[in-house]
């Protein structure tokens, strides 16, 4: 385990409050831009005119705004925030800047759940299939991620202690098992199922709908709102487990709650939007560079920046190849990876990674 670097000499950092205001402003600006951008007309100026009561929208414009762009905006915000916060939580728990929600098996489990639903969904009794309908894949993905996390925490818990190293190794083993099972199902899949599967694994907000948002919100919102309560404990954990215990932190409870929160947020996000990588690592890292490793600022900021990043990426995904659209996972990786590398190269000497 690499400890999170604590700077040896204090660098002048921007005030957290100024960063918060900047992030909120950025989020609002990107949201407005996103609502006013797309394959079908409806510009930001037209939007402002409509919202300030100047003009009425046509029926088509209303449909595009309320049935397409707003649900996508809400879903992008939710999914981006969930992934970034889950990433920050895992990095805090593992005291490693490279940890991501995948470590607790959420990704592999959700992938296996989704693939099972795509390939074996036809075998369900009609009554059950009708019950879940279009939500079968998200539901199965969430269930898969949840089961994987439960198994992992069981494996890593012995005598009331959660061993972080065991958790990590068990995560790798579970990932391999889920990968193998996914491979078997991929082999069984027919052409169309294979294509569905590929598209799911690249992630997309194209299937955004109010119903999907309502499904995931009860899992994501509590994590976004309550995760700052874990901030003090995670800050103490950065010093090491015994030290945190001496500071009066319930180490075991912190670990369990952190894993639970990660599984809920990342599981729900992956379930409704598919596999979107990179947000969980890049966003917290950028923020640590800006405001330092204090989780009290890091967690709420991660939610803001994660949401903004995904809304921006989705805007690019929707417009770059219009009228077709790119899977958003491609956009986040294409944009995120070079930026991340550049930051690493620039800060190599300072960040000590």
């Amino acid at each position: 385990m690499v400890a999170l670097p604590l700077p040896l000499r204090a660098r002048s950092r921007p005030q957290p409050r100024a960063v918060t205001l900047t992030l909120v402003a950025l989020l609002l600006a990107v949201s407005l831009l996103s609502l006013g951008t797309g394959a079908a007309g409806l510009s930001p100026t037209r939007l402002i005119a409509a919202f300030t009561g100047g003009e009425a929208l046509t029926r088509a414009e209303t449909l595009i705004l309320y049935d397409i762009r707003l649900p996508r905006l809400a879903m992008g915000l939710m999914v981006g925030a969930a992934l970034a916060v889950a990433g920050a939580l895992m990095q805090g728990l593992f005291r490693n800047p490279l940890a991501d929600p995948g470590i607790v098996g959420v990704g592999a489990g959700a992938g296996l759940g989704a693939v099972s639903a795509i390939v074996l969904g036809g075998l369900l009794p009609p009554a059950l299939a009708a019950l879940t309908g279009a939500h079968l894949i998200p539901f199965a993905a969430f269930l898969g991620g949840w089961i994987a996390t439960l198994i992992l925490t069981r494996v890593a818990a012995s005598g009331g202690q959660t061993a972080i190293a065991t958790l990590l190794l068990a995560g790798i083993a579970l990932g391999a098992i889920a990968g193998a099972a996914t491979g078997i199902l991929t082999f069984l899949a027919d052409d169309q199922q294979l294509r569905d599967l590929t598209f799911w694994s690249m992630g997309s907000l194209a299937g955004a709908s109010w119903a999907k948002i309502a499904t995931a919100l009860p899992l994501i919102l509590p994590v976004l709102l309550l995760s700052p309560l874990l901030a003090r404990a995670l800050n103490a954990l950065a010093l090491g487990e015994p030290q945190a215990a001496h500071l009066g932190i319930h180490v075991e409870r912190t670990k369990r709650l952190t894993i639970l929160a990660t599984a809920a947020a990342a599981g729900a996000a992956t379930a409704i939007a598919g596999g979107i990588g990179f947000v969980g690592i890049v966003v917290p890292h950028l923020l640590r560079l800006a405001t330092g490793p204090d989780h009290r600022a890091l967690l709420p900021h991660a939610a803001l920046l994660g949401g903004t990043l995904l809304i921006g990426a989705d805007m690019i995904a929707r417009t770059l190849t219009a009228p077709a659209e790119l899977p958003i996972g491609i956009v986040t990786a294409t944009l995120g990876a070079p930026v991340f590398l550049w930051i690493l190269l620039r800060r190599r000497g300072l960040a000590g990674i």
Partner: protein
Amino acid sequence: MTFRLSLTLALALATPAFADPAQRVLTLGGSVTEIAVALGAQDRLIGRDSTSTFPPSVIALPDVGYFRALSPEGVLALNPDLILSESGAGPQEALDVLNAAGIPFTMSGPDTSPDGLIAKITTIANALDLPDEGKALAADVAQGLQQARARAATVESPKRVLFILSLQGGRVMAGGEGSSAESIIELAGGINAGMGFDGYKQITDEAVLTAAPDVILMMDREGDLAINNDMVLAHPALSQTPAAKTGAILRMDGLLLLGFGPRTPQAAADLHALLYPGQG
């Protein structure tokens, strides 16, 4: 009699109650686009999906991407007044939005057999309000398919044909039972050598040897996916097949061969001529 009446009624209800036939049509799926053009509706098309690449004149139309991963806004931006689709368009959320926008949407059946093809032509022709052209094209295609079947029946010693979809990493992905490759091979008077597995699957080297194809059939592809004869001859299992030893390696355009559209009788005739040269 009652049945016929209710069917007419159902068809009457299914056709949108517009005075004029649709003028801004979006077609999704290679064979659907081909059928619409064959019916003479090319000038009414305003968009296509990424699988629609024939005739070449449709390539200039705006491309809405892969038809199973539609972007609802992208589709709405083209302002279509009718959408014709191959079965399997999606995702469901995108279809819900298009439905809310009140755009008539006609999806053809999932059947890729010759009978399914005739049904598809009829469905599309009715949606385009071209029933007479539909009847003519369906009769044409049905006659072509009948000719192909008759031609196939005259073959005395049918050749075993293995369709290879890809050779990625040296692994053979072949067309098995119930695949569109099997349908066209049989229409051309061949026997599908890919047996014992469904659809398109990667098969082992031993299965390739057991299949013992007299002919290897592939898509005519460019770039990374192209499989040249050297690759086939260098492959440990493929090189041992009768097909490789006699150099019987054939290539045809993918959409023509497997698309199951109006050109399928043509595809069957072309493949037959390649398999049995000099037998008419």
